[in-house]
């Protein structure tokens, strides 16, 4: 009988530490599948960010470097400039990329660094216990927006994918979700495409993945999954925002 579903070779065989119903594990799996697909495990270098995904080195069977909070895209650029023959990706939360590390994210895209950023957007600071993130939705209650996010003092949720898609340097920008099988299949294709762009030296690739954080949203896994569809996707529309067909500098 043909084996149709197995653990990607790129994922180490230990259970994730993520909370039940957390989508980080699914997003990790998508990255691992893409690495397996292109058979690049032995030439891939991952850069972990600070957030719930900091333990990336426990799960991915590739070389991994830990970056300071927010700096993963600068760190990855440094890795890539030193080793242009390697595949380099970051996995960053929304606090990491859209708040403290937004300058590094924008300039990495703008320089057209030939790396891949996986942006895990769960609209909240997971690791530090559910504080407001730059991507927290208006009205959403968090531990530091107890009355709900109010644009008069907190501003609006940032749409990172749209922002990065405006930059000439970015080659591939997409936003996906993993809340149902149809979206999951699209997410899988987008992550694969992002790595393909890097392999083909097309330039900067970016995939924003909308993730549920049931723990800090104060929801069950099912409720959180539903919230992605009903509240997040309407504000953060899914799709491919930019896809370069030919490397500009060629």
């Amino acid at each position, binding site marked *: 009988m043909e084996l149709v579903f197995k653990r990607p070779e790129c994922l180490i065989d230990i259970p994730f530490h993520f909370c039940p119903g957390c989508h980080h594990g699914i997003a990790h799996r998508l990255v691992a599948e893409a690495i397996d697909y292109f058979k690049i*495990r*032995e*030439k*891939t*270098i991952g*850069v*972990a960010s600070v957030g719930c995904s*900091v333990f990336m*080195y426990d799960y*991915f*069977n*590739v*070389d*991994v*470097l*830990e*970056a*300071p909070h927010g*700096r993963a895209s*600068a*760190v*990855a*650029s*440094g*890795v*890539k*400039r*030193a*080793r242009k*023959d*390697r595949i380099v990706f970051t996995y960053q939360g929304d606090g990491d990329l859209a708040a403290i590390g937004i*300058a*590094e994210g*924008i*300039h990495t895209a703008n*320089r057209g660094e030939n790396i891949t950023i996986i942006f895990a957007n769960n609209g909240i600071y997971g690791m530090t216990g559910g504080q407001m993130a730059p991507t927290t939705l208006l009205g959403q209650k968090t531990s530091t927006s107890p009355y709900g996010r109010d644009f008069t003092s907190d501003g609006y949720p940032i749409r990172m994918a749209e922002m990065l898609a405006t930059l000439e340097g970015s080659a591939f920008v997409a936003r996906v979700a993993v809340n149902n099988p149809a979206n999951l299949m699209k997410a899988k294709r987008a992550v694969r495409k992002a790595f393909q762009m890097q392999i083909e030296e097309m330039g900067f690739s970016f995939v924003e993945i909308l993730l549920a954080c049931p723990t800090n949203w104060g929801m069950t896994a099912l409720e959180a999954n539903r919230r992605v569809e009903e509240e997040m996707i309407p504000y953060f529309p899914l799709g491919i925002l930019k896809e370069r067909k030919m490397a500009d500098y060629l």
Partner: protein
Amino acid sequence: MWPFECGEIVENQEPEKILAKGNEAIAMAAMDSRCLLYFGYPITPQNDIPEYLSKHLPALGGEFIQAESEIASINLLLGASATGARAMTSSSSPGISLMQEGISYMAGSELPALIVNISRSGPGLGGISPSQGDYFQATRGGGHGDYRMIVLAPSSVQEMYDLTCLAFNLADKYRNPAMILGDALIGQMKEPLIRRKCAKMDLPVKDWALTGAQGRKPNRLKSLYLQDGELSEHNWKLHQKYEQMKKEEVRFESFFTEDAKLMVAAFGSMARVSKTSVELAREEGMKVGLLRPITLFPYPEKALYDLSQRVKLFLTVELNTGQMVEDVKLSVERDVQVYFYGRPPGSLPSPEEVLEEIRKYYG
């Protein structure tokens, strides 16, 4: 093999005598040490370094990035260094402040690299005049956590070159960031420079480098340790390294120490001025010597202690209101008088002004 894989040092051209600026000497030494990766953000008075490297690195197949900030610079450096390649950044005081978190991560993850601080005066925006106000920041860690950085303080253009070569070697030997601490005086002045082959050092193989897990287990470079006891073990391991540096890497220059009754202690640009003052004092028949720490960490504690067995008068001269003087006091015997002459940023004291201080305490 990838061109930036480290360790090996290019056989440099035959010794070449040229006239160079201190900052340019650093850039040349970097290239001659096979450092082909530079990341930095413009700031006076060190712009000659990125300007020189942006011009010369491309021809050597290197990479130059003018980053969006010093925060990005230090993290680009962290990433490049993690691959085992030699890499550097340079900046001046406010920029070095911004780099502190990254330096702490590099010390914690045991990543070697060169950080150049052609310091200016502070606090805050301060000014661009020469200053030694960053002594504490450089030698006390600067960033968070219990770590040390190798700090070398050149006092001539030749030393800007030689100590840059040494800094790369020491960084690789100890898997630790190393800093060149200079100022506008040494950075901007032109002097004859012998651009010679960088001294070879037996360096450990960088088997920890991230190069892709081909035919080996994945390598991890991190500073997060959450398991019971893991972090204290890690801290002790780092401590052992710093102790080894103290044993093996102390470098200093001593001048007229044999019969000295008063010792001047000064580093970098102030040591140049003080050396002339010591010569003038000798002309007047005063038995005065100079001890110039070249490594600010590890500090020449023992040399100072040994001297203090017979010399009971010390005068520390600095371009600040008193920082290294604390290390002098910590190093010498208790019965020694340690005086201080400091000059906050603005103008450099003349050799005569320092001589005046020497006369005052010589008695």
